C-alpha cells in the first residue's frame, strides 16, 4: 500500500500551458512512481510550466526529492519550469540538507511563483 498523497489540479486563468498542482500529505518511496507518472503526463500534454503548491505536503524523503529534481529537469528540457511554493519548514530543511535549494525554483508564496511565469 502506498503512503497517502493527493494531487489536486487547477488551471490558472490566462495561462494556457500552466498547471497549478497541490501536493497533499506525504511524498515517499511508496508513491513516487505514481506521482511521477501523473506529473510527467501533464508535462507531456503541454503543461510545461508546473506550479507545485506544497502548503499541505507534510513529508518528503530523498526519493521524493529526487523525483522533484527530475520534474525540474524535464520541464526545463521542454522550455518550461517546475516551481515550488508554500513549502513547510521541515520539508525545506530536508531539501536544504541535500543541497538542492539551488537546483529547484522555490518561492515563499504561491503568488510569487505564478508571477515569476510572466
Amino acid at each position, binding site marked *: 500500500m502506498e503512503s497517502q498523497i493527493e494531487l489536486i489540479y487547477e488551471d490558472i486563468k490566462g495561462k494556457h500551458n500552466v498547471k497549478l498542482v497541490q501536493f497533499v500529505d506525504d511524498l515517499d*518511496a511508496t508513491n513516487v512512481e505514481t506521482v511521477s507518472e501523473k506529473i510527467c503526463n501533464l508535462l507531456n500534454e503541454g503543461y510545461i510550466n508546473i506550479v507545485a503548491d506544497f502548503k499541505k505536503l507534510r*513529508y518528503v*524523503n*530523498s*526519493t521524493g526529492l*529526487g523525483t522533484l*529534481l527530475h520534474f525540474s529537469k524535464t520541464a526545463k528540457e521542454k522550455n518550461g519550469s517546475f516551481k515550488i511554493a508554500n513549502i513547510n519548514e*521541515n520539508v525545506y530543511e*530536508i531539501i536544504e*540538507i541535500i543541497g538542492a535549494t539551488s537546483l529547484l525554483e522555490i518561492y515563499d508564496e504561491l503568488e510569487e511563483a505564478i508571477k515569476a511565469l510572466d
Partner: protein
Amino acid sequence: MEVNIIQIPDKPHAIILKFSGEMDSDQIGMINDTFSQINSNINYVIVSVKSVQMISSSVIGELMGYRKQMIERGGDLVIAGIDFSIRTKLNLIGLTKIFRIFSDPRSALNAYRWEIERHAEKIHVSFPSHLKIVPPVRQLISRIAKQKGYGNRDSFRLETIVDEICNNAVEHGMSGNELSIELNMEIDPEKVELDVTNTSDPEKMASLKALLKPKNDNEIKLDERRGRGLALIKMLTDELSVDCSGTGTSVHIKKVREE
C-alpha cells in the same frame, strides 16, 4: 485518614504515600509525621489519593512545602490516582499548575524513570521486508519521540532517518514476507540510538558497497533520481556506522536531541 508508606523495589529515591479518608486540616500533624519518616535520600514522592474523599486547602499548602523540598533535592512531589472528572475540577482551581497530576502511581513512576533517572526506553519493531511497511514504521517512531517530549523538528528528523535507513534495508536486502527487518530503538531525554538490521542479499552487496563509498558533492547530479538517502542520514545524525560483515547488514545511528 490513613496513610501507607510504600517502598518501591530498585527505586531507593522514590516512594509512594497512599492516603485514604479525608485529608483536612486536623490531619496535618499526621501528614508531617509521615514526611518526617521519609529518608532524606528520597527525592520523588508520589502522593496517591485514589481513596481520598477530600483534600483541604491547608493540606494542599503543606504538600506544596514538601514539593519544594523534593525539588531542592532534584526530584518532585506528584499527585496520582485522581479520577478524570475530579482532574477537570482541579484544573479549574489551578491545582494542576502547582502539582503534576497522574492517573495512577505507575504513570507517575514512569515519569520518574524518564525525567529524574533519565532512564532509556527500549522499543523493538520487527517487520516484513517490504517498502509499503516503512511509512507506518517511520511514523510510529516519530510519534514515540513526540510522546516522549521531543519537539516537532527532532521528531520529523527522526522520521526521515528511519525512513531512509529502512528503505535502504528493503532495497539492498532480501525481500519477502518470511524475512524481517529488525529495528531496535533506545530513547532517553538526551538522545536516540537506532539499530536496523536486514538479511543481506549477496547479489546486491556490490550496489550496497558502491552506495557506502564516500562521494563528494560534485558527484550528486541533477539528473540522478536516487542515491541521496545515505548522505541525508549522515547529515541528520551524530553517529553512523554500517556493518556488512554478518548475514545481515546492520546500520547504527545516534541522534542527539536538539530542542
